[in-house]
């Protein structure tokens, strides 16, 4: 009879009790998996952001525009390698509830700056530069709405209007791009600035912000300072920061999401710690006499310790792995239905590993006291105790 078999038999002797413990652990780890992944997705922008990418926004607030002339002036600064400009379109498809991430970009420079992140075929690149009303769509967005290359899609803006009074622009999908890494979010689309600028009713020749790459991250500070000094005391002062810091500040605007997640997951773990810990303690106490028998058969104290700890770790792993599995199924089910602005949710390997570590830690913490008690138990006491 192997240790593992003993452990398994011990655990499932009370089938109901074992199942209840497993359900309890499963719930906590499912909550951990889902919330952890959502938080990770929200913060993904910071992780993906390249270290050498800077964002130049209007100092008043990033929703205030900058003049397009700034683009060329930034381009001329020493240490700046590639520059592009971007405008938030406030897009939605058919119904204002279907918010989409749509950005107005300068095609050639945009693909230069983001070329190492987005996989765009050369045919798509050429048509995007050539076709005035062309749009490049990320595969996540294309899949969600069933768009294919060649499709004509009208996208409305909740911010801008055309000169003809309409707030809807027509686009032709000229290409669908994918991310070069799995964590790159592709739930967005981009279209040509020239088309937008010629048709918009107000704010002609204004852009939203400038994104640039420096020759090396070491130059970031100097380049940022040069840019902000260049435009100081002008009607449009700028604030330049790394893309990472920028998206971090943006996420913080929604509130302390990390804290909320930690509190809820913490509450779930305290619950199982108490329930499972107490149940294990009780179930080992009930087996006092048996442990005495095992010891009199020659089982060492160490082996008894391993048996009881093995039981608590087995129950934690069974419940925990099932919980993470459930979290994956849940994420797959909700992924296409959550709001259009949330980036791609995946249960990342880091979360899975953290979960695994938590399961082991949890198994040890809940099993340690009963295991030590069982190890120290003296045969005479065990067999005598009733």
């Amino acid at each position, binding site marked *: 009879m192997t240790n593992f078999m003993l452990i398994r038999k011990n655990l499932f002797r009370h089938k*109901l*009790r074992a199942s*209840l*413990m497993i*359900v*309890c652990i499963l*719930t*906590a780890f*499912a*909550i951990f998996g889902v*919330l952890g992944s959502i938080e990770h997705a929200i913060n993904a922008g910071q992780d993906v952001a390249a270290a050498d990418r800077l964002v130049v926004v*209007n*100092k*008043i*607030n990033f*929703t*205030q525009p900058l003049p397009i002339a700034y683009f060329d002036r930034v381009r001329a600064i020493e240490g700046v390698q590639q520059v592009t400009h971007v405008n938030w379109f*406030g897009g939605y498809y058919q119904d*204002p509830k279907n918010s989409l991430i749509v950005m107005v970009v300068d095609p050639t420079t945009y693909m230069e700056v983001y070329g190492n992140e987005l996989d765009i075929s050369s045919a798509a690149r050429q048509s995007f530069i050539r076709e005035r009303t062309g749009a490049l769509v990320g595969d996540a967005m294309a899949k969600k709405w069933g768009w294919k290359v060649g499709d004509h899609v009208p996208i*409305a803006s*909740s*911010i801008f*209007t055309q000169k003809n*009074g309409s*707030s809807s622009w027509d686009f032709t999908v000229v290409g669908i791009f994918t991310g070069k890494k799995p964590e790159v979010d592709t739930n967005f689309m981009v279209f040509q600035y020239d088309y937008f600028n010629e048709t918009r009713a*107000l704010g002609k020749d204004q852009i939203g912000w400038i994104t640039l790459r420096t020759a090396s991250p070491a130059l970031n500070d100097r380049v940022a300072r040069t840019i902000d000094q260049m435009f100081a*005391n*002008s*009607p*449009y*002062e700028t604030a330049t920061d790394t893309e990472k810091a920028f998206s*971090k*500040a943006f996420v*913080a*605007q*929604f*509130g*302390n999401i990390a804290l909320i997640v930690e*509190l*809820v997951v913490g*509450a*779930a773990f*305290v*619950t*199982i710690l*108490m*329930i499972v*810990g*107490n*149940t294990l*303690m*009780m179930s080992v106490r009930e087996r006092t006499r048996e442990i005495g028998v095992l010891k009199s058969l020659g089982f060492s104290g160490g082996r008894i310790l391993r048996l009881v700890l093995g039981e608590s770790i087995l129950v934690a792993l069974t419940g925990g792995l099932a919980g993470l599995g459930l979290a994956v199924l849940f994420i797959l089910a909700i992924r296409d239905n959550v*709001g259009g602005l949330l980036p791609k949710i995946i249960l990342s390997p880091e979360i899975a590993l953290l979960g695994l570590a938590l399961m082991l830690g949890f198994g040890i913490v809940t099993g340690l006291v009963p295991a030590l008690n069982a190890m120290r138990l003296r045969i005479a006491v065990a067999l005598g105790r009733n």
Partner: protein
Amino acid sequence: MRSLLLQITAVTAMNLKSLPKRFWLSLSTVVAVALVVVVLLAFLAMQNGFQHTLDSAGAKDVAVILRGGSQSEVASVIARDQVRLIEEAPGIAKGSDGKPLVSAELYLVVDGIKHSSQTKANLPLRGIGQEGAAVRKGITITAGRMFAPGSNEIVVGKALLKEFDGLELGQTVTFGTGRWKVVGVFEAAGSVFESEIWADLPVVQSFFKRDNVFQTVRVRLVNPAALAGLQRYLDTDPRLKELEAKSEAAYFAEQASRTTDLIQKLGWPLAIAMAFGALAGALNTMYSSVAARTTEIATLRAIGFGGLPAFVGTLTESLLLALIGGVLGAAATFLTFNGLSAATLGASFTQVVFSFKLTPALAAEGVSLALIVGLVGGIFPSIRAARMPILAGLYGR
């Protein structure tokens, strides 16, 4: 009948008196249920607080006029000629000076430093017309004074002071190249306006290079029914055709629903998921309770007690544990979260400062969820207790 009642009372009392023997396991159930209730109520209190902040801003007899299709003020554009035409619309209340209560406004987003994270966050800067404060109800300056027309002075909503740095009375604030002096703090009955900064409209227009651009027009109506007349007036004039009038109440209700829906969509499922965990704990505790009392229950049955008292006794124990957990959870939520100030990004893409608000009705929802856990967690062990075969019970298994 009387004897049955006596039996039930006796068995229930025995059940409850034996609770200390299972102290730790019972405590873990109580704590598990309490934590479920805390999670649920914290989310509900958050949602309720946010809703309250937007609801109390919305008056039925104030109309907001925006460009049709704009979902928030930031996206709307109205021209000066249109503002002048709106001033002549029917159904608009007049101020004490005989002028119509109309305020054309410009709503801009500026940066503020959030106290909790020390990061930049979007603050609304509203340029309001001379009648701006009068159009709204319940606006009072609690410290300092109103801005002087034509000056670069601002008044700051009270709620902003809690969440943002550098907006205290007397401070100078820089937005871009413009420097503004904080000359007053205003209260607006806890509404979303308390999350705004107000300044004189023409000054804002010139500082931000938006001369002659307006985004919304707010008007005080003679009564709520006048809204229909106002919309008809807008529809019939071709120069105003693209404009849309909404009651302020409807406008804010729409804005609130997006955020509160999201909070609710998170709160309930999470609480229910956690409730399953607590339920497993409750079942465990109650099955152990029945198992521990096997001999006792069988003895009672042998001396003539029925199955029902055993059932009721066990169920009562379970419900009591859940009730204690529920009440503890509600009390803990009240003590830690009620009144807690928080700020999030609202539908206008600017920060809305609100306070968690736990009402007795919400607390009752939390306790109900706890009792459901107690009921379901108690009913199966209770059935087992009631059906326990006497002989097997007496032999201990």
